[in-house]
């Protein structure tokens, strides 16, 4: 860069120097010789006038004399051109001089001159001739010739100094070029380094220049652009991080596919469902990652129609997760369209939907069963069974039992809806757990006795009192114990225990009953949910017991947890918080 600039400047300077000397040469060369030749001519003319032809005897000495003074060869030529005297050569053998240019000029104008190259001497010769007249009659001509040695050497001298000056000029221009190129290149070099650092992504400040010419403006512009660029970068980064935070923190799963249909982004919430490292999915296809035929079909539909597609798709392995999946296009540059897939988890929604439809179906079913029995027996009575007192009594007993069951069902339903609606007013008081348990056990003893189930109460008497509504608390224990006794085979055992733990009291009711399969546990507490549909109804349950317990525990600020092993038994843990007085 610098050398290049230097050479350019130097070259232009040299061109100027050379050009000026060339012009000088053109002007000077002819001028010098012309002036000098003119001077010599005048001098020789002057000497020519001195030639005296009056005395032919002393002619030779005279000529010698003049030749000596004028430093020239003097030749006398007569009117016909014949040489009759010469200062240097013998006249014999000399050719006719009449047609020499200087003689011809002299014949016409009185005097003449000519510069010719003399092959004998090897230099330019100046010839001048003057006519000699005698009363209008041409007597002859005087010709003086002198070699132009002086002129040539003078011109050479001048040229020598010219060349010397030229060399000095070139040298000066070299130095000047060096200086200027350095001065000019310095700010450019600074900017060059600056932009290089910028290109390499190294931290840069701004350019500071001490110059005040155009480079300064350029540097200012670069500084401005860099600042602008930094701002743009910062903004873009901020936007990106905002977007990434939004994408990663929302519950919805997001997948972005690049134009080759490979995964470019996958939100962590989805990665959790897919159980794998987030990085593993990058660059894979949708099919490779999700292994889901439905999703692939939805994707193909989208690819074919290019219209947004929404589907509900079951994902996941052990526990299926239902996702509402929608595919749409991310607008980008032509040929860089991406596909965004948003997964919205609707498992809970679906579950609630199912619970609601189940509930309606269950209520009608639960009500219809006793009603069918009641109507059937009433019809039988109407058709004549009334007349047979023994049958009639049995039928009426059954009708009463079924009506009681209906009543129980309606009461349970009312309780649960009241709790859910928050219409139940609880009268909180300090309740001693052992007191409540004793009264509950009195209720349960008869039922347990029939099945020969022993109920063991291990609750320590000195346990901390809890804040609760006594009646509701009784209901909770009755429901849980009723279940325990109901689902424990004859000769089994039910154990009650309590301990203080984590700021509350945990009451456990464990039995040695049939147990509950793992996947059913989380559905317990749903209204009318029964693990074993047929058997439970035979045992006279309404399917609302645990649901009521769950809700009552929630209104007490506690919770219910169930652990179970099929065939071994079930353990229900009830947690009551202890509030600081």
């Amino acid at each position, binding site marked *: 860069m610098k050398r290049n600039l230097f050479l350019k400047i130097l070259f232009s300077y040299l061109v100027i120097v050379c050009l000026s000397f060339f012009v000088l040469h053109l002007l000077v060369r002819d001028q010098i010789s012309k002036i000098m030749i003119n001077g010599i001519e005048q001098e020789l003319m002057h000497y020519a006038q001195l030639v005296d032809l009056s005395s032919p005897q002393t002619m030779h000495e005279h000529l010698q004399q003049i030749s000596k003074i004028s430093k020239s060869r003097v030749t006398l030529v007569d009117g016909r051109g014949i040489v009759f005297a010469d200062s240097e050569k013998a006249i014999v053998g000399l050719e006719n001089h009449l047609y020499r240019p200087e003689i011809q000029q002299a014949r016409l104008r009185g005097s003449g001159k000519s510069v010719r190259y003399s092959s004998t001497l090897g230099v330019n010769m100046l010839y001048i001739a003057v006519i000699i007249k005698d009363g209008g009659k041409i007597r002859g001509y005087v010709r003086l010739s002198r070699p132009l040695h002086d002129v040539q050497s003078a011109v050479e001298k001048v040229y020598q100094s010219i060349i010397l000056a030229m060399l000095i000029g070139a040298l000066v221009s070299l130095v000047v070029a060096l200086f200027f190129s350095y001065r000019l290149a310095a700010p450019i070099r600074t900017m060059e380094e600056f932009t290089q650092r910028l290109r390499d992504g190294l931290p840069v400040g701004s350019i500071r220049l001490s110059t005040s010419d155009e480079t300064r403006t350029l540097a200012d512009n670069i500084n401005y652009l860099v600042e602008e660029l930094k701002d743009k970068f910062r903004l873009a980064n901020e936007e990106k991080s905002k977007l990434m935070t939004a994408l990663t923190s929302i519950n919805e799963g997001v997948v972005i596919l690049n134009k080759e249909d490979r995964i470019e982004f996958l939100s962590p919430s989805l990665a959790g469902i897919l159980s794998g490292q987030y990085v593993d999915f990058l660059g894979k*296809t949708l*099919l*490779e990652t*999700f*292994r*889901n*035929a*439905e999703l*692939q079909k939805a994707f193909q539909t989208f690819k074919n129609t290019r219209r947004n597609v929404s589907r509900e798709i079951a994902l996941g*392995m*052990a526990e*299926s997760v239902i996702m509402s999946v929608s595919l749409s296009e991310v607008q980008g540059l032509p040929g860089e369209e991406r596909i965004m897939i948003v997964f919205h988890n609707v498992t809970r929604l679906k579950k609630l939907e199912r619970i609601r439809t189940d509930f309606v179906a269950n209520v009608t079913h639960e009500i219809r069963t006793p009603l069918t029995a009641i109507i059937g027996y009433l019809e039988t009575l109407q058709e004549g069974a009334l007349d047979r007192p023994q049958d009639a009594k049995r039928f009426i007993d059954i009708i009463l039992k079924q009506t009681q069951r209906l009543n129980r069902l309606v009461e349970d339903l009312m309780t649960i809806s009241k709790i859910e609606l928050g219409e139940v007013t609880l009268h909180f008081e300090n309740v001693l757990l052992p007191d409540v348990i004793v009264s509950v056990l009195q209720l349960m003893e008869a039922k347990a006795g029939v099945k020969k189930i022993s109920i063991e109460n291990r609750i320590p008497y000195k346990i901390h009192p809890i804040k609760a509504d006594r009646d509701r608390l009784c209901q909770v224990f009755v429901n849980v114990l009723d279940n325990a006794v109901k689902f424990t085979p004859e000769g089994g055992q039910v154990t009650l225990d309590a301990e203080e733990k984590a700021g509350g009291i945990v009451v456990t009711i464990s039995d040695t009953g049939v147990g509950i*399969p*793992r*996947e*059913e546990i989380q559905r317990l507490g749903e209204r009318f949910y029964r*693990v*074993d549909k*047929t058997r439970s109804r035979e045992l006279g349950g309404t399917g609302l017991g645990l649901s009521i317990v769950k809700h009552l525990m929630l209104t007490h600020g506690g919770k219910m947890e169930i652990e179970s092993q*099929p065939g071994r038994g079930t353990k229900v843990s009830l947690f009551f918080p202890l509030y600081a007085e």
Partner: protein
Amino acid sequence: MEEKRHTSLHYEKELQAIKDGLIFLGALTETAIRSAMKSLSDRDTELARRVIRDDDEIDRLDTDLEERCIKILALRQPTAIDLRFITTAIKITGHLERIGDMAVNIAEKSILLNEEPQLKPYIDLPRMTDLVGGMIKDSLDSFVKSDLAQAEQVRRMEQVIDDLNEQIFRELLTFMMEDSRNIHRALLVMQVSKNMERIADHAKGIADMVTYMVTGTCVRHQTCEMLE
């Protein structure tokens, strides 16, 4: 397979399409098994009917994939790993198609079982479903990634499924001995369990083929102990 690139981009695409098709087929069969087992545990006859209907798609995809493989064999005349890849793919589609048929078998049994009260709550069968579903997924994963270790893991898993099947068999036997009226239902459940066990066998078959594809050695008729 993953890193290698063929000079012919088209050929490369054809191979990738076969791979994608196999994964898709695998996903379909896995869904079929899960749905069939769900129809049994949820007593959902409608779902079982859908599994039987959807099997047509699996069959169609199987023949389609096989045809494409044969076309590649004829037109491209693959050698070395590509040849093993194509032959493996043909065998895998066969396995997957059979798995689909077994899902249909299970769905048919499920329809019959749903007509009668449930014999017992299913505990081991759902476990089996998860394990077998995982095996199919893993075997195809090992195929896609040419992962020998994963193929080996699938082969080991097969023993676990065998044991589970044995356990279910013994349990059902007690039900049958208890009450002869249980025999029909118990036999149906037993067939479901047997079908699951055979699906696991097919998954192992896929894993064997993957080992063949990667190493070129046949491990089909060896047991795990012999391999060690």
